[in-house]
């Protein structure tokens, strides 16, 4: 068996797979956008896909996976033909691209399993090459008059930029140069802003140096854009910060009718037979340990700032030199701002919105449901929740498995659903929510559900339950037994009896668990819950008896100032009225056992609500809202159960994070106070 080339010895397998995973992710995102685009392929998505596949080719070649590199090379050729207009954007082309991506993903999976240079599916490259060969030669957009460019800029255009220029003209877009004169010390910011504005308003065809300006402290750039013919360019120019706008002759002509591009007989590669794109890098992959160190060091820095502030305060209190005192205060204020900004930026590197994970699930639903002959809608709630990237990665496979299971076994075929009086399309719903120190993913389908008796029978048939064993208390738990499957046939997706046991085992490694509930004929719900390693929670920060406490805003209804005259005692409890209903009141500090007991209630009331429970907690002050990183406290650290974790605040203070549900359930013992239950 052939060994992978020397390159792979230098390139760590883990790094290779991580890089490949990211590139496939980018590619699938771009294909999804192209799939939604309809008639015309958005240039940005085609380019993103081209860049990703170009990188796949380079990475595979470097690691010595010659077959994979060859397939990526062919796919790159197809994408180059697509972006250069030599083949049309169509469902068929996208299917070829999607199949090639799956072939690459399959090869990556086999590399992960240890194969040195995996075989690719038969005919994978041939299908790509046939698609390219069926395209046109030359530049489809070249028909008609080309806009006239100044000769110096004309020489600078790459093939791709020239193609986009012609394409814009062909579509009747108005072509214009925007000239920018930007300060040397911040030109990158201004240039980025202008490029974004041009891309938003139309299409950025190219960016060119503008030569020496009159002012040596400024740099000149020229952006070439293609804009809708009716778009006022003065607005674009003003938002982009351009000093001059020049409209090019030859642009803005009547758009050609669809299909006016002449069909040409055969594909002829570019001048040197290679794609003309110059690779650009937009992201850098950094090992998570390095990010963790960065985040932790910024936390340390925040503490040092706090210590410095305290010491500086003492020193400045006795300083007599007013000028020096002012300078020191100003220097500290600058440091304070920078450390706060650095802290936020560092934290952002560790977190990803859950929707990055759910987007993958969405793609699986989109590609798998039609292949099973099913119609399925997939709704996600709570995708904006941000969790630690490591956790998101670890959760991907278990959740993918549950989704595949629901599609394959849970949701019925349209005819079966209609016969059962259900809508043709099945519904899959994913709710993501934080629960105290955990994050929960609840995936529900409205499919056929599972019958406990049938599961027990199946388990006995397969020998997973001996004839002498009694029926389990919860028959649904049988689905997590190794080797269990109710599928009558083995498909590529499931039915091999390998799966939910592995899902549970993998979740157990994360100290999490999965539970299942089901109603025959109505559907099945899987609930995955894992403790958070890190979680970014939007929180209301309050002070209570001098302590910072953070309440997740998801559990806070509102805050108001109580009128002491409207607070009355009912039995053991204090009550006020809020929104026309009685609201039990508690001192947050006293309830948690912080500060001095018996102190009069503060007047600021935070109304905490979860499900039917609602109560008001008085606090000394409300400090504002912050996205805080909640670090769960280890179970071995004794404390009240409402305290789920701790968070370092941007100013260097520490806050204890409080779970709203647990706070309410401890303050409102069941049945003790009817006013706290809606």
């Amino acid at each position: 068996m052939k060994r992978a080339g020397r390159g792979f010895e230098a390139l760590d397998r883990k790094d290779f797979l991580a890089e490949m995973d990211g590139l496939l992710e980018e590619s699938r995102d771009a294909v999804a956008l192209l799939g939604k685009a309809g008639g015309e392929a958005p240039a940005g998505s085609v380019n993103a896909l081209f860049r990703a596949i170009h990188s796949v080719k380079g990475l595979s070649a470097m690691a010595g996976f010659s077959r994979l590199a060859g397939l990526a090379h062919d796919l790159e050729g197809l994408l180059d033909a697509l972006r250069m207009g030599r083949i049309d954007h169509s469902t068929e082309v996208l299917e070829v691209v999607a199949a090639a991506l799956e072939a690459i993903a399959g090869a990556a999976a086999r590399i992960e399993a240890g194969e040195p240079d995996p075989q690719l599916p038969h005919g994978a490259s041939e299908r790509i090459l046939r698609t390219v060969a069926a395209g046109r030669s030359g530049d489809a957009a070249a028909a008609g008059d080309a806009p006239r460019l100044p000769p110096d800029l004309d020489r600078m255009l790459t093939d791709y930029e020239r193609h986009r220029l012609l394409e814009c003209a062909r579509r009747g877009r108005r072509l214009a140069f925007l000239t920018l004169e930007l300060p040397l010390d911040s030109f990158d910011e201004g240039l980025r802003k202008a490029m974004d504005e041009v891309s938003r308003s139309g299409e950025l065809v190219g960016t060119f140096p503008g030569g020496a300006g009159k002012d040596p402290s400024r740099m000149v750039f020229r952006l070439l854009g293609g804009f809708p013919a009716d778009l006022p360019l003065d607005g674009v120019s003003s938002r982009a910060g351009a000093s001059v706008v020049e409209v090019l002759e030859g642009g803005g002509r009547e758009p050609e009718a669809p299909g006016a591009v002449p069909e040409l007989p055969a594909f002829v590669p570019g001048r040197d037979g290679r794609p003309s794109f110059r690779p650009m890098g937009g992201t850098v992959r950094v090992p998570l340990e390095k990010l963790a160190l960065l985040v932790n060091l910024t936390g340390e820095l925040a503490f040092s700032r706090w210590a410095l502030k305290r010491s500086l305060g003492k020193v400045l209190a006795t300083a007599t030199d007013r000028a020096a005192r002012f300078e020191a205060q100003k220097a500290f204020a600058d440091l304070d701002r920078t450390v706060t900004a650095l802290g936020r930026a560092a934290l952002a590197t560790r977190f990803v919105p859950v929707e990055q994970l759910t987007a993958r699930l969405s793609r699986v639903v989109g590609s798998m449901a039609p292949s099973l002959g099913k119609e399925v809608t997939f709704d996600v709630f709570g995708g904006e929740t941000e969790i630690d990237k490591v956790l998101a990665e670890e959760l991907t496979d278990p959740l993918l498995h549950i989704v595949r299971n629901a599609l394959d076994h849970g949701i019925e075929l349209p005819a079966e659903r209609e016969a059962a009086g259900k809508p043709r399309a099945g519904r899959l719903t994913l709710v993501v929510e934080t629960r105290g120190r955990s994050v929960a993913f609840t995936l529900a389908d409205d499919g056929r559900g599972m019958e406990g008796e049938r599961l027990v029978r199946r388990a006995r048939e397969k020998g997973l339950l001996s004839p002498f064993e009694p029926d389990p208390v919860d028959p649904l738990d049988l689905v997590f037994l190794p080797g269990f499957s109710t599928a009558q046939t083995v498909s590529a997706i499931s039915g091999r009896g390998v799966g939910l046991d592995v899902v549970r085992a993998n979740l157990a490694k994360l100290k999490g668990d999965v539970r299942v509930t089901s109603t025959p004929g109505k559907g099945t719900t899987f609930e995955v819950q894992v403790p958070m390693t890190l979680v970014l929670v939007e929180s209301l920060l309050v002070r209570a008896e001098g302590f910072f406490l953070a309440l997740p805003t998801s559990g806070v209804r509102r805050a108001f100032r109580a009128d002491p005259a409207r607070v009355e005692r009912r039995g053991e409890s204090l009550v006020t009225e809020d929104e026309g209903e009685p609201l039990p009141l508690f001192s947050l500090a006293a309830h948690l056992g912080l500060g001095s007991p018996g102190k009069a209630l503060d007047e600021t009331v935070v109304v905490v609500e979860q499900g039917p429970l609602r109560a008001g907690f008085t606090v000394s002050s409300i400090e504002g809202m912050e996205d805080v990183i909640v670090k769960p406290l280890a179970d071995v650290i004794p404390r009240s159960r409402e305290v789920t974790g701790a968070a370092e605040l941007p100013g260097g203070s520490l806050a204890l994070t409080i779970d709203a549900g647990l706070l309410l359930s401890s303050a409102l013992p069941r049945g003790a106070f009817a006013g706290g239950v809606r």
Partner: protein
Amino acid sequence: MSPNAGSPYLVFRVGGGRFGLAVDRVQGAARARQIVPLPGSPPEYAGVTFVRGEPLGVLDVARALGCGPTERDGERTGQFLVILEGERHALLVDRIESVEEISDEAGVLASPEGGNVREGAPGDGPALRIVTVEEVLGGGKR
């Protein structure tokens, strides 16, 4: 280390006592910064603090071992944390004194407070009481 050099111990002071903790159970030491009291924790717990980005429970050695008045009874400054290896706890002590190699041949006496007191251990001041992590954490979990 010479053959008879014994084992290294982190020597720290709490109240009027000197204590030694085997260094292989110590990850490091740091000046204590913000320690936030934890509602519902026993009195031996000073609270929670962050060390290198991770929250650690802080056990007050003075209270856990019942060492009487401490050097911390005044302003809460000058305190140190002994960060334990592989534990989610740090120990709050008054002062880190040194790392000493304590000879295994030094006489070992039973201490009335529990633990072992080594006579002949280096350093000035009161006799050194050798404590284990389990002993101190056990004090905090009483």
